[in-house]
């Protein structure tokens, strides 16, 4: 089995049949993490506990009693999910060294099914950002920066200037998780998605990024950014794998009162061959300012793909789309101001040495613990929540949010099954270029295509589609109806098969997978 293999199809079978053991798998991943350290995808590598989990898994396989498909599978988790005994930092000074006493529900579920937790991945501080560049542990580098495909297309000005200054960002804020999956150091990773934080880096890193319907997967243990929009995100190398992860994580959690009560039945994805009954909507507002001509062309090509296969492809309108950025800004900062109020240094986390008074200790702790991005959002949020501003901003934004959500309801009611849109405005920017603009500007620009799905609570998925002129991944997004993940993923899987997105060619992976690395294949193995 190769590190590139799909879960359900290859790895699981290989483990069951003993062709590879969980410890071997774990060790290979750990070795690859070590040799790809320059990507800075991981904040914490939990080597000891991972090997122990792998050993336990191996015992189960020996007894012929694996816990399921995920038993022995190496997984990475974004560092804003609580993991008992393993540091949870949110890439912030505020939580450096913080060891949580409990596991997030999604983490617990993974562990209960025998998954091997390799470590915690890097992100923008407290998940605020769209580049994974603004955490205290430094930026995450997109593995594609080191791919043969990218290097072939880039023209370095001088030899010394090549990899060091040319590397591109992963997108964010779940950049570490996306990079980890993209570079084969794990088979799947958990991210979070509040305005696009799973889909955006998935698009830039050429992996599948699923944002489930709000309320389907428990947020208990996910350190919140915006409680009313956050969801745990799933990053994998193929759509089938995303379905496997979804099946193991979805369902009511009594610890999270915003999860729905209905029973969730895990599903296997059918191999769709006939799309003639499918109606695909193309929202015209998603032809957003700044959308690269390359991606526009790709989007168009994808629409044609569906049309030629017999599907009904129609242009639709989501008229309130262009309000979503400001609406998101108000609601997001308001919730941030509220959620960050607990970080005062008293019970946990960083505490300033300032001792003059409780208040001065709070102020110093928060100034020292949070970066500018976080502090900026707290200030904005508090402004919007002031009594004199509440109606004007917060309530107004909630109303606009309702309008945005209603746009989707209307479109889906008109007979459209699924929406097809770009995920990002362009391919990944070089880091040096990306940091020219501040976080707020970047987030506002980059989130435009992904935010609305969070506002409306709808499921959405990025499917890697093709390489750009620069040799970097470009993905397209499907948005589905509430709780219709099966339909969403079925269509995504069909599309994935059509486009045959190329496998990343990384030196490091070649080295580790030598002997098994055979030939280029699409990410989806049929």
């Amino acid at each position, binding site marked *: 089995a190769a590190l590139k293999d799909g879960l359900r199809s290859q790895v699981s079978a290989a483990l069951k049949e003993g062709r590879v053991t969980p410890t071997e798998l774990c060790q290979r991943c750990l070795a690859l993490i070590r040799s790809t350290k320059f990507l800075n995808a991981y904040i914490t590598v939990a080597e000891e506990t991972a090997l122990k989990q792998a050993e336990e898994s191996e015992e189960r396989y020996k007894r012929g009693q694996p816990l399921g498909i995920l038993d022995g599978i190496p997984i990475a988790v974004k560092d804003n999910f609580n993991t008992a005994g393993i540091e949870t930092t949110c890439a912030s000074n505020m939580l450096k060294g913080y060891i949580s006493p409990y596991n997030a529900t999604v983490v617990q579920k993974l562990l209960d099914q025998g998954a091997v937790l390799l470590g915690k991945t890097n992100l923008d501080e407290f998940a605020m950002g769209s580049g994974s560049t603004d955490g205290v542990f430094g930026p995450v580098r997109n593995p594609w920066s080191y791919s043969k495909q990218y290097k072939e297309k880039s023209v370095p000005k001088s030899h010394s200037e090549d990899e060091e200054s040319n590397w591109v960002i992963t997108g964010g804020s779940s950049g570490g998780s996306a990079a980890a999956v993209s570079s084969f150091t794990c088979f799947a990773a958990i991210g979070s998605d509040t305005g696009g934080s799973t889909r955006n880096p998935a698009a830039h890193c050429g992996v599948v990024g699923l944002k489930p319907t709000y309320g389907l997967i428990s947020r208990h243990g996910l350190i919140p950014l915006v409680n009313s929009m956050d969801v745990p995100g799933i990053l994998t190398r193929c759509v089938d794998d995303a379905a496997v992860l979804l099946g193991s994580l979805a369902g009511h959690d009594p610890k999270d009162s*915003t999860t729905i009560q209905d029973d969730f039945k895990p599903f296997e994805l059918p191999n769709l061959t006939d799309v003639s009954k499918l109606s695909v909507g193309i929202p015209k507002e998603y032809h957003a300012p700044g959308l690269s001509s390359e991606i526009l062309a790709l989007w168009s090509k994808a629409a044609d793909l569906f049309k030629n296969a017999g599907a009904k492809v129609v242009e639709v309108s989501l008229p309130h789309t262009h309000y979503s950025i400001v609406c998101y800004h108000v609601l997001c900062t308001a*919730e941030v*101001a509220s959620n960050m109020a607990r970080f*005062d240094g008293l*019970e946990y986390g960083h505490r300033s040495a300032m001792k003059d008074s409780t208040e001065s200790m709070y102020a110093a702790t928060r100034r020292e613990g949070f970066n500018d991005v976080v502090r900026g959002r707290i200030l904005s949020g508090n402004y919007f929540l002031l009594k004199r501003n509440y109606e004007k901003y917060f309530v107004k934004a909630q109303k606009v949010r309702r309008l945005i959500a209603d746009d989707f309801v209307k479109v889906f009611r008109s007979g459209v099954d699924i929406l097809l849109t770009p995920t990002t405005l362009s391919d990944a920017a070089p880091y040096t270029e990306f940091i020219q603009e501040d976080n707020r500007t970047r987030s506002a620009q980059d989130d435009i295509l992904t935010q609305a799905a969070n506002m409306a609570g709808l499921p959405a998925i990025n499917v890697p589609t093709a390489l750009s002129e620069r040799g970097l991944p470009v993905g397209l997004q499907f948005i589905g109806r509430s709780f219709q993940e099966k339909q969403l993923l079925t269509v995504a899987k069909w599309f994935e098969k059509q486009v045959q997105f190329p496998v990343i060619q990384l030196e490091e992976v070649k080295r580790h997978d030598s002997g098994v690395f055979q030939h280029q294949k699409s990410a989806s193995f049929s």
Partner: protein
Amino acid sequence: LAPWIPVVGLEIHAQISSNSKLFSGSQVQFAAPPNSLVSFFDASLPGTLPVLNRRCVEAAVMTGLALNCSINKKSLFDRKHYFYADLPAGYQITQQRVPIAVNGSLSYSLYIDNKMSQMVTKTVRIKQIQLEQDSGKSLHDDARSQTLVDLNRAGVGLMEVVMEPDLCCGEEAAAAVRELQLILQTLGSSQAVMAEGQLRVDANVSVHHPGEPYGVRTEVKNINSIRFLAKAVDYEIQRQIEELENGGTVLNETRAFDSKLGCTVPMRDKEGKQDYRFMPEPNLPPLILYDAKSLPANMNHQQVINIDWIHERLPDLPSVKREKLVEQYGILPEHSFTLLNEDGLAEFFESVVKQTQMKPKKVIGWILNDLLSYLKQHSLTVKESPVSSFLLADLLKLLEKKEISSTAAKRVLAELWKGEGKTPLEIVKEQKLELLQDQKELEQICQAVIDGQQNE
């Protein structure tokens, strides 16, 4: 000088009597070792979420029904933000927009004058009842310049009962709160013991001249007993009147009641008005309650609260109990108040009545005049009484059978108080208190006394 009309509005926080806290599973218990009853959520560990405690909702519904409120079938939770050491999350979860119960009333009675001869019934309107979290406790250690924080109480469920400003003085405030306390204790929704912080009262006080708009009000906090409530309110009314009559102004401020000095003083750390930046609590969906009509057929009964079901099971409220006592035993309304006012006294009375032939109207005298005054003198509760209802009943039986005089009975009672385990009959024999029934014997004694007098 123009008369002043004092206006008093009370905000009462009653701790809900439940096993666990409002939004988490940690235990509710008084005086436990510091920080021993704190769940991850109570400590505001990042990533934890609130889960609503059903029992707390039921307690609030019961209380709302007992106070004649409309129960809102849909109510909402909000965050109220401020920074303080005893508020780990930096916000309190409360119900600011739509509380669980609104528009009720509380009837209470008080003596019309000092003679305690006649009672009058008054009503105060209840504006609303809302569910909210209690905060932890912070203790300031000035000697070591540190603050000690105990989060045991953080997250305990509270019912905040907001009254309209219908009260006019300390006596009314005390009587209203006393009645509320009895109601809560009867329902079991709160143990409402002020000394244990289970019932906290803040008083809003202002004064104005008739025909003029309401005056500026102050909020008085730190009131630890019903007796102090009356004192604090009356003091504040007086203070405001004096201030205004001397040409001064009343500041819209928060004042603390100093029980040692018997006055209110401005509170140190309240600087100006706080903007609490209220925001809906995004982790709790709206609270939906049902009644018999609106209850859907297939609903899982574990998941719903039926207001009508709770209504049907409400116990007799104090006002009803009093009426029953008056009707059943022919005692005065004032008596019924005193009986219910002392924990266990009504039961004691009824027990004695059952055991003797003496008319309840006579028994009540022994209960209220003799027993109760002994209890008060020795600061004992009815439960702690060295004289049980059986002993008293025995004594009253002797009295009823005319075996002893009432003077003798009082002497026996005094002896019983010593709690030496003697029965009334034993004491009577010991002290030779038997009533002589024999005419001839009595004549002889009288004659002896007269003779004795003559010899002097």
